[in-house]
C-alpha cells in the first residue's frame, strides 16, 4: 500500500521535474503525459476507478493529442524539430524563486498541520452512484459543464481557423 504510493509519487514528481528541465518540447510533453498517467494511477490506488479512467481518457487520450498537434502545427523549421530556447537567467531565477517560496510555504504547512483522518474501510463509489449523483443533485453543474464544453469547442475552432485571404497575404515573404 505505502510502497505503491511511494513508487507513484516518485514517478509523478520525477517525470514532471525532468519534463520541466528538458529542452526538447516533444520529450517534455510526453514526460508530462507520463506524469498525468501517474495521477490516474494514484486515483486507481485511492479507489476512485471511474475518475482514474476518465483522467486517462481525457489527459492521455485527448489533451496530449491536442498538445502534440499544436507542437507539430507551430514548428517553423525542419532542422530544430522541437527545441525550445532557454529563458533568460533573471527570468528563470525569479520564476524558480517564486515557485520555491510557494513550495516552501505549502510544504511547511503540510508537515506541521495535523488533519483529522477517518479510520476504517476505504470508501467505495460505483459507476451507478456517480450516475445517480450526476443526474440528481449535480445536474445543474452537469448542464453548465456541457455548455462550457460546447462554447469552448466553437471558440477554439473560430480562433484557430484560418482566413484564406489573410493567410495568402501573410505567407508571401
Amino acid at each position, binding site marked *: 500500500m505505502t510502497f505503491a504510493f511511494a513508487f507513484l509519487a516518485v514517478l509523478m514528481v520525477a517525470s514532471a521535474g525532468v519534463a520541466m528541465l528538458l529542452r526538447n518540447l*516533444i*520529450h517534455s510533453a*510526453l514526460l508530462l*503525459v507520463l506524469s498525468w498517467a501517474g495521477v*490516474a494511477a494514484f486515483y486507481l490506488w485511492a479507489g476512485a*476507478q*471511474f475518475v482514474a*479512467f*476518465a483522467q*486517462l*481518457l481525457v489527459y*492521455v*487520450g*485527448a489533451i*496530449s*493529442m491536442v498538445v*502534440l*498537434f499544436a507542437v*507539430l502545427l507551430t514548428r517553423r523549421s*525542419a532542422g530544430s*524539430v522541437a527545441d525550445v530556447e532557454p529563458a533568460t537567467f533573471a527570468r528563470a531565477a525569479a520564476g524558480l524563486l517564486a515557485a520555491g517560496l510557494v513550495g516552501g510555504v505549502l510544504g511547511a504547512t503540510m508537515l506541521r498541520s495535523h488533519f483529522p483522518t477517518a479510520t476504517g474501510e476505504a470508501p467505495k463509489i*460505483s*459507476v*451507478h452512484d456517480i450516475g445517480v449523483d450526476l443526474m440528481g443533485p449535480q445536474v445543474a453543474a452537469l448542464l453548465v459543464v456541457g455548455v462550457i464544453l460546447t462554447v469552448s469547442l466553437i471558440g477554439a475552432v473560430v480562433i484557430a481557423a484560418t482566413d484564406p485571404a489573410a493567410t495568402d497575404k501573410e505567407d508571401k515573404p
Partner: protein
Amino acid sequence: MTAPAPLTDSFLERVPLLVRDFITGWFPEPIRWVVAGLLAALTILLVFATIFALLTLLERKIIARVQNRPGPNRTGLPWLPFTEGRVFGLGQPLADGIKALTKEDIVPRDADQVLHFLAPVVLVAFSLMTFAVIPFGRNLVSVDLDAAVLFFFAAGAGTELAVFMAGWSSHNKYSLLAAMRALAQLISYELPLLLSVVPVVMLAGKLSTTGIVAAQAGWKFGFIPRWFVLSPWGAAGFVIFFIAALAESNRSPFDLPEAESELIAGHLTEYSGFKYALFFMAEYFGMMALSGLGVTLFLGGWQAPLPVLEVIPSYLWFGAKLMLLILLFMWIRATLPRLRMDQLTRLAWKFLVPLALINLGNAAFWHLSAAWPGLPLQAVRYAIGVAVIVIPFFLIGRRLSAGVAPRTYRYAP
C-alpha cells in the same frame, strides 16, 4: 475473477475455469489471485498471438482469392506426414516470424533512439491491455471492472500516442506526415466510436462489459435473442461502430496513415525486423479487441443465437462471432479503395457524428416506449425507430454527395 465455476453449467462450459482452479491449486492461498491473473494474461497472449499468426495467412489468402490469384501456397510444414510438405501454405506465418526475428534491426542515425524503441513496445502493451475487460465466455473475463467500457477506451487512447511517437521519432518527413494524418484520423473517429457506444451504456444502464452482456440475455417469443443489434437503434449503432472501428484500427479503406502508395509505409517507414512485426501484431490486436468489444456490446457477447444451440460452450460462440467480424474487416479491405484525407474527415464529422447523435435520441425513444402494449403498437414502435435513423441517413447523405456526379466506368464494362 477467482470465483469457482458454478455447477449448473455443462462440463465443456466449465473446462477453462476448472483448468485454472487446478493450476492455482498448486500455490498457497495468499498468492492465488496473482497466479490467476498471470494465467489469464498468459492465456490471452498465447491464444491471440496464435490467432494473429493464422489471421495473417488467412487475410493474404482471402485477398488473393478476391483478386483471383492463389495467394501463399508454397510454404509447408515438412514434418507433417501425408501432405508432401504443403498444406495451404500453413507454414507461412512460421516463416514470416523467423524472418522478422532474424532480420537486421535498423535504427536511423538521426532518429530519436529512445522514442523509436519505445513506440512499438507501448503500442503492443496498450493494445493488449484492452483485452483484459472483454468477456470471452460465461465467467471468462480477466478483470470484471465496474467501469470496463471506460477502461477499454482509456487503454485504447495509449495506442494513439504510440503512433505519434513512431512517426515523430523516425525523423523522416513521410513518417511525420503520417503521424499528423493518423492523429487527425484517430481523433475524428474516436467521436463516432464513443457516441455509438453511449446508447448501449444508456440502455443497459451499466459500464461493465459483463453487465452489458447480461442485459442482452433472454429470448423474445422464445427464439429471437434480445441482442442490441436486432433493435433499430442497435443496428444503426453497430454500423457506425463498425465503420469507426475500421478507421480506429487503421484498416482499409481508412489506412491513410500507412498508405504505402503515398507515404511509403507511413509511421512504419523506418521500422524493420522485429519492431515492424510488433507494429503489425498491434494492428491485428487492435482489430481483434475492437471486434471483441463490438461483439460484446451489440452482438450479445458470448450468448448463443438460439436456445437449442446453448449446448455449444459460450467461448466458442464468442470466437465464432469474433471471426465473423474479422472476416468482414478483411472482405472490406479487399473490396473498397482508400479514401482521400478530406473525404475521411468529412465522413466522420458531417455524417457519422450527426447520425450517432440522432441515434442517441432514437435509443432514448426506444427505452421510453418499451412499455407500449400490444403487438401493433410494438410494430409502430419498431417502424418509428427505423424511420428516425433511415430518413436522416438519406437526407444527410444526399446533401453531402450533392454536386458529385455518379461514378462512371469509362474503360471498364
